[in-house]
């Protein structure tokens, strides 16, 4: 397998805040890769660094897409290479309609018929958006805005799609739906890099899982292995092992994961 995206030893600062402290990982072509970690671990920062959304960062390190270094470029150049990004907190255009969003998602494309087809494809994934075609995005519900952000990213026909907490603020049913759609998108040939708080969900659809703590990766592995790992269970899935009164180990849910 070849790596579509390869991040080598990057370090990112926000002024004096040392946020990413030498992180390396690879995303295999065709895979779903998940990055997990606590609040403030630096997950979003890694994604923003890849998308060149933090000025003059990464300070050190190399980011290669398809074997070509892409760090320290402008964001639009990186998008042009076929990397679509669904940011944390949606970042929609309040006063553009759903339809206009999808057109903007295809801003770099010239093939009008293909764009039309893809708009229909997005509506097939998210039928509710079709009913809102001419409604301003600012008037959509939070969940609908999240679908719109994913739809907009799809319109690029990306080779790699990067999603930052797509499940944030969604109802449990919608979370399931969104993950099902992410898997479907992946099956049509798009490589996926995913950041999630919902560790259980993320590990169950991804092939590879990476765990970030304080700006460094502390664990990498097959998602199925991670799901069984004792530390992961304890710290990220909220399941604690303890010795019961009768003397054998049992697994107990410590707290509901948000």
């Amino acid at each position, binding site marked *: 397998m070849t790596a579509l995206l390869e991040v080598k030893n990057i370090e990112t600062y926000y002024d004096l805040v040392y946020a990413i402290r030498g992180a390396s990982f690879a995303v295999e072509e065709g895979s779903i890769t998940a990055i997990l970690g606590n609040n403030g671990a630096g997950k979003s920062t890694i994604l923003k660094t890849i998308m060149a959304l933090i000025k003059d960062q990464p300070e050190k390190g190399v980011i290669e897409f398809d074997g070509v270094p892409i760090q320290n470029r402008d964001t639009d150049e990186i*998008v042009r290479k076929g990397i679509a990004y669904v940011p944390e907190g949606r*970042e929609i*255009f*309040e*006063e553009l309609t759903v339809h206009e969003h999808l057109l*903007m998602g295809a801003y770099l494309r010239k093939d009008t018929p293909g764009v039309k087809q893809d708009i229909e494809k997005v509506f097939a994934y998210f039928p509710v958006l079709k009913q809102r075609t001419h409604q301003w995005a600012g008037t959509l519900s939070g969940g609908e805005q999240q679908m719109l952000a994913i739809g*907009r990213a799809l319109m690029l026909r990306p080779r790699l799609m990067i999603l930052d907490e797509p499940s944030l*603020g969604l109802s449990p049913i919608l979370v399931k739906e969104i993950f099902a759609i992410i898997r479907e998108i992946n099956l049509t040939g798009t490589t996926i890099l995913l950041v999630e708080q919902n560790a259980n969900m993320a590990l169950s659809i991804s092939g590879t899982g990476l765990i970030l703590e304080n700006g460094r990766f502390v664990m990498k592995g097959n998602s199925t292995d991670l799901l069984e790992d004792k530390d992961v269970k304890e710290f990220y899935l909220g399941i604690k092992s303890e010795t019961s009164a009768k003397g054998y180990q049992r697994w107990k849910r410590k707290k509901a994961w948000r």
Partner: protein
Amino acid sequence: MIDFIQMIVSGIAVGSSYALMGLAMVIIYKTSEVPNFAQGEMALISSFFAMMLLTSFHLSVYLAFFFTLVFAVLLGCFLEFAILRRAKEPNVLGMIVITIGIEMILLGFVSWKFGAEQKTMPFPIGPYDSLIIRDIFISKLEVLTLVAALLLMIVLFLFFKFTKLGLAMKATQQNRVAAQIVGIRTNRILMITWGISSLVGAVAGLLISPTIMHPYMMWDPMLKGFAAAVMGGMTSLPGAVVAAYLLGIIENLFGGYVSIEFKTVVAFVIIVLVLCIRPSGLFARHYVKKV
């Protein structure tokens, strides 16, 4: 009655130039979030550029105006690219000071190059040519101003509504980061915005220049345009236009019926009132950001 109609008609005409200046300021404000105090002087230098083409180079009016509009676009793009973009860690206050600096430089340049006295613009329509319709005098220049302003507004409307570039500009105005992640070069959009705004202002300047042509000719229209933009909420194109026409009409009625000396002050009384009562402007719309 005829007086009244007459005043309304002139109010609409003068409102057109306020509307253009207001539009120019709103267009920049929406993308750069800075009120561009150099707007008037950008229009000023464009008008003098037109005069130079007409008097020194003896170009035909159409050609001269065409080149003037090209000049205006380039000027706007240049100012954004060469000056505003260079601002390190820009904040609104700093940007405002920069636009005031640009204003001073342009004003100084025009005064130095062309002198401060009143000039005449060799325009095909003079300020006193008029039409008489049912006892109402309408100056041809006023009609031209109104028509040109309306046409330009329609073109702008169509541009923002139906072209990809216009849509990309709106997108950039609404969310810079989101625009970048769909691949829009937001820097370039900013530059084009300044170009378009400069063009709109230059049209106002050209339409004013047959009546008044000296280095301070744009002060009044620019301040009134700004007033209209503020009344309209600073981010609404139709808001600025409606407010500009209201301002022109109210001002004229006030001058006719109350006091001619305080005519120009009316605009600012209205601004103060609006800012006290509805600080977000008369036409602003707000969406609550969803979490």
